[in-house]
């Protein structure tokens, strides 16, 4: 076998003849996005997301063999734009939500359908893991959250939204009673330390995040009791004091160290804190202009001035979040702001460029028409929404199970395991760029558990090829031509009939959520 050199983005590399450009790049650690390539099938050249530029022309790298002295461009803007366009064109006819609307609408990004599926499976402990991984103070939020998730719930367009907040509260309260309460995993100690000034929702949310990342955290507050603005909710009876105390206790058990009765500007100075800690986060709640300036901070009419993209104040190493930046009402948003600032601090501590994290990518299907909704409801439990007390009273787990069964599981079954979603995030694709009219939603649930969603099929051809190679009796084929091509079993057969031998293999290699198991 002859070997020779090629260059990819200026890096020289020895390759064997017969290798594809895609394979060669992989050796160099360059991940060229691809959706339709499966070694077993050979290059299908359908998705064209794996474009590279060679000799002034864009070519699919999966089907192009290396040649001596070949110069390949993969990381240029032009190549990235082309890949992004290919992804955006695929999304223009993609029907489905990667993340469920409730998940997307949760400011803290809780994966709600996962929680509900665990409840439905009677795995309450695991349901709490899903909750606690996203929420710093779940029992508090289970009472105070204004639940934007429920506004987006597709079930709500049919009858009533699923009682997401009440179910979340139920599993979170259960953890208090647990003989083996759950504590989220922490990374190995980073050797860095952060002081958080202000023990309210923003500060505690940030602390929760920083602890998970392995940083040592100290929370200082001028009050005697932690909780900040949450204490006001206790006063107004929206939040029982024992719940707040139990939640603070849960945080203490996780490793939060409180130093109460310490006032910034009086007991300690910013300079002093910066000498003792690697970073400072100010979450003192609303703060007057004069008070801020006295600390040496630049102010806006609303509060402390920070760079929107980094939460960084004018003092290096000092960050601010929550109502101390801009007055906010909703506790879930305050917590989300606290966590966003903590993410910036984490990057700051690692010495990486600071960039506020964007929302996770998700295709959005939007409103369903009446007919589509009927299809969406196929197989769903038609039971009515339970009353809050039925769910939250400790003796009625059954009501929780029933309520959780009302979830329509709007998230894609392949979310997190979908190449299209992954690369869309990497390339910053705008899923709605070329979409003016959405294709209708379709899904075909087969008796054997294979689910086919034509709206998510990108016509990569992998399943068609696999069925052909396995000499399926019926198999799958492309039907039609042009824009209307689709994958189907011949003679009106069901997908299941086409996949007698190869169902598992096809589901495994489907690059999107078009073919899944129930």
């Amino acid at each position, binding site marked *: 076998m002859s070997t020779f050199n090629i260059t990819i983005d200026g890096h020289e590399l020895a390759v064997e003849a017969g290798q594809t450009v895609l394979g060669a790049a992989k050796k160099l650690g360059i991940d060229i996005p691809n959706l339709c390539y499966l070694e077993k099938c050979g290059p299908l050249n359908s998705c064209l997301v794996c474009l590279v530029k060679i000799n002034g022309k864009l070519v699919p790298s999966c089907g192009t063999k290396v040649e001596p002295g070949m110069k390949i461009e993969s990381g240029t803007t032009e190549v990235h734009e082309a890949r992004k*366009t290919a992804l955006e064109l695929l999304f223009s006819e993609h029907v489905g939500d990667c993340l469920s609307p409730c998940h997307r609408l949760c400011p803290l990004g809780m994966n709600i359908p996962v929680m509900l599926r665990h409840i439905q499976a009677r795995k309450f402990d695991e349901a709490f893991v899903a909750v606690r991984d996203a929420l710093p103070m779940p029992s508090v939020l289970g009472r105070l959250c204004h639940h934007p998730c429920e506004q987006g719930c597709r079930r709500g367009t049919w009858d009533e939204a699923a009682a997401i907040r009440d179910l979340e509260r139920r599993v979170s309260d259960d953890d208090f009673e647990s003989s083996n309460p759950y504590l989220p995993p922490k990374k190995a100690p980073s050797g860095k330390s952060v002081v958080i000034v202000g023990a309210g929702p923003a500060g505690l949310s940030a602390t929760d995040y920083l602890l998970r990342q392995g940083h040592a955290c100290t929370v200082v507050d001028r009050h005697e009791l932690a909780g900040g603005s949450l204490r006001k909710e206790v006063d107004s009876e929206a939040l029982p004091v024992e719940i707040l105390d139990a939640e603070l206790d849960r945080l203490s058990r996780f490793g939060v160290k409180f130093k109460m009765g310490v006032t910034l500007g009086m007991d300690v100075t910013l300079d002093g804190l910066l000498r003792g800690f690697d970073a400072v986060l100010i979450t003192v709640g609303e703060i007057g202009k004069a008070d801020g300036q006295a600390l040496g901070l630049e102010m806006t009419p609303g509060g402390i001035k920070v760079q929107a993209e980094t939460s960084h104040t004018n003092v290096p190493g000092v960050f601010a979040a929550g109502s101390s930046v801009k007055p906010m009402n909703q506790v879930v948003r305050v917590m989300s702001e606290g966590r966003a600032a903590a993410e910036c601090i984490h990057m700051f501590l690692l010495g990486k460029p600071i960039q506020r994290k964007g929302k996770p990518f998700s295709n959005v299907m939007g409103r369903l028409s009446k007919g589509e909704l009927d299809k969406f409801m196929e197989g769903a439990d038609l039971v009515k929404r339970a009353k809050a007390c039925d769910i939250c009273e400790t003796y009625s787990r059954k009501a929780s199970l029933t309520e959780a069964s009302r979830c329509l599981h709007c998230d894609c079954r392949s979310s997190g395991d979908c190449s299209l979603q992954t690369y869309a995030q990497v390339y910053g694709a705008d899923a709605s760029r070329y979409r003016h009219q959405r294709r209708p939603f379709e899904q075909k649930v087969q008796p054997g558990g294979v689910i086919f969603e034509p709206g998510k099929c*990108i*016509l990569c051809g992998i399943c068609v090829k696999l069925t052909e190679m396995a000499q399926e009796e019926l198999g799958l084929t492309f*039907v039609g031509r*042009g*824009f209307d091509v689709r994958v189907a079993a011949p003679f009106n057969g069901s997908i299941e009939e086409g996949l007698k031998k190869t169902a598992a293999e096809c589901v495994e290699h489907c690059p999107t959520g078009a073919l899944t198991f129930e």
Partner: protein
Amino acid sequence: MIATSPAARKSRADEAIVSAPEGNRIVTPIDLKFVEEAVERIGREPDAVIPMLQETQEHYGYLPEEALKRICEITRITPAAIAGVSSFYDMFRHRPVGKHILRVCRGTACHVTGAERVEDTLRRHLGIPPGEDTDPERRFTIEPVACLGCCTLAPVVKMDHNTFGHASAENASRMLAQFLAPNGAGSGQPQTEEERRNAVGLPQINIGLGSCCMAKGSDRLFEELQKSVEETGAQVLVKRVGCVGMCHRTPMIEVAIPGKPGVFYSGLAPGQARELVLRHFKPRGLMRNLSGLWDRALDSVLNDAPVEKVANHAMDTKKEEVCAFLEKQVHIATEQFGKADPLDLDEFLAHGGFEALAKCLRGAVACEKKVQGMLAAGEKEVQWGEPLFAAEELIGMIEKSGLRGRGGAGFPTGPKWRLARRQSGEVKYVICNGDEGDPGAFMDRMLLESFPYRIIEGLAIAAVAIGAHEGIFYIRHEYPLAVKRIRAAIKLCRKRGWLGERVAGVDYPLRMTIKEGAGAFVCGEETALIASIECRRGMPRLRPPFPVEEGLWGKPTVINNVETLALVPWILRHGPEAFAAYGTKTSKGTKVFALAGNIVRGGLIEIPMGTTIREIVEVIGGGVGPGRQFKAVQIGGPSGGCVPAKLADTPVDYESLRDVGAIMGSGGMVVLDDRACMVDIARYFLQFTQDQSCGKCTFCRVGTRRMLDILERLCAGKGQRQELVELERLSRQVGAGSLCGLGKTAPNPVLTTLRYFREEYEAHIEGRCPAGKCAGLVKYRVLENCTGCTLCAQSCPVNAIPMTPYSRHFIDTTKCTRCDSCRQVCPHNAIEVK
């Protein structure tokens, strides 16, 4: 409008999936005996699927699912293959059809001359509901066709096997009546494809019998002429010839008497045949003469019809018009145009036919013997006392001539052959690409119909050049006459030893077969064409490997366009220098163009490369119609672009056309006048490409549709300014990212119109269509000079104009469908379109 409404877009996939005949619950069982017989005849291998489907459809009228299942049971064809292939190609139908099939051409020339209105009228007339293709009584099925290749007769409708040209909303119903009349056009078709040997030395009446000429009735005239000659006993040969080129004057005949200049007639009716014969040829015997004249005189008295004088149809070849059409032309691919009987092999041989092939064969065989040291002692290397073309030498000559592929991309032919020759391996193939799918082009059809032996010779020479023993004609099924003539020609060549085990008496076997396309523009792309011959879905694949390395069945394969092959024998007979003397520095020789659209003299022309667009349009074509302005020419069909009138001095050669954003393409040239809306033209082509895309790669499959989405919004007046930027950007991305030539060139019509006619796009954003074409943006109004003649009210198909005799009419714009009928009939130009 039918063609533009997204709801009415035909989805092949839908049709294939919903295969049960709707509204007909009791499905009569189908006799599957035919399928079994056909399988015995055609074969059981997977590569029999397309011929099998073609025969099945021919027999049942559509593809019944039971029949397809039966085929899978008794052959090695898989259900996946049969479902995939039968839903890919246009010609296959999964639902029963009406008794008659009306094919409405949607080619470019037809589009710009009002095909949509014709289709609308036919649909209304036959009661075919929108979104359906068959009337409730199942008498008629209407079927759009990408292009029938009769562009000079646009708009064209084909009713079963009969083609009708110059259709209009006004004459559509008359056309139907004519078709349905007993003994009318629908009752059968004269035979014009039998082999013939024409007597030599007699005076002749030459009559063009190409598809276009026949659509204008030349077949009936031919029959009448033969009958008249027989009856009058005149010593004259009525001779069928190929395309005459002057399609705007068909049916055209030439009376050729040895020693005298030819006399031409155009537009003669079949009824005038006898008079013509008598005018030129004295009948034998006085009695016959008298009786004939007597009959004729009696006829005219009894019929009381105004008898038009035959003399009025005579054409003066010295006349400026005819001179202008012919003067600039050089006939190489179309040598002997209008003179030769397409299927008279002796005549072909008499004019130097197969001379070049014979030399090539003898040269190749002698050379081979020499290489192998097999020349017997005393055997001469050169046997004819003339130079023989050993394969290398032959390729050298083609290289020297500068011949480049006439199919579109212009790849040099000689080097292509050389690459293929260098490939090792016993089995190689040559393919003649006759899948002329571009709407607006019909050169290849005319060449195949008119000069079948010449193309066979070209393909045979290509085979000898690369060392292949098998040649395949891939011809689209929309060209039945071309298929028949090539088939007849191959058969005769075999009989006379010009094909077969020993060609021209030399030890060189060469077989030729025909594969009929099944209706897919993308199959003009060579890798898709190969897929189609292999009976798969016509989906292109990534090149390299190129077909010269790995082509048909994985073997080295040369694919040449019809016109390229037609030029080859001439080059070898006259020498490469003679060919290279025509043309420009990089584009040698001549190019055949199909000139059509808004032009006075449409037709098939062959001009030296480097002729300017202006010379073609204004001198040869006689310009656009009176009172109209020449706006642009569309060159290269869906892959080409619109060259504006201000660039009409661009010479026609590969590089100059590329520089202005168009491409040479295969030779369709559609002239547009000021009535053409350039945004609509771009929309028209994108509609075509997104439908014809094989649907494999993302850029072409989805990208062209998204471009079309934007263009449709623009044409409906719903476009936004920033969408122009997006359209341009997406066009460039689709061009750069697509897998094959179809996608790579699909944005050209958009990019050229954006480049040269941006103001029209801007106008659409502002809600105006300056050409008055886009239905969503124009309103019809009756002006004050209306005399109340009621013609408009009578012609309005939707009763949007109340009849108010002697007073000014008005149009109810809520009912008006912008069909343009009123404006066409108004004798006072009182209809305003704004």
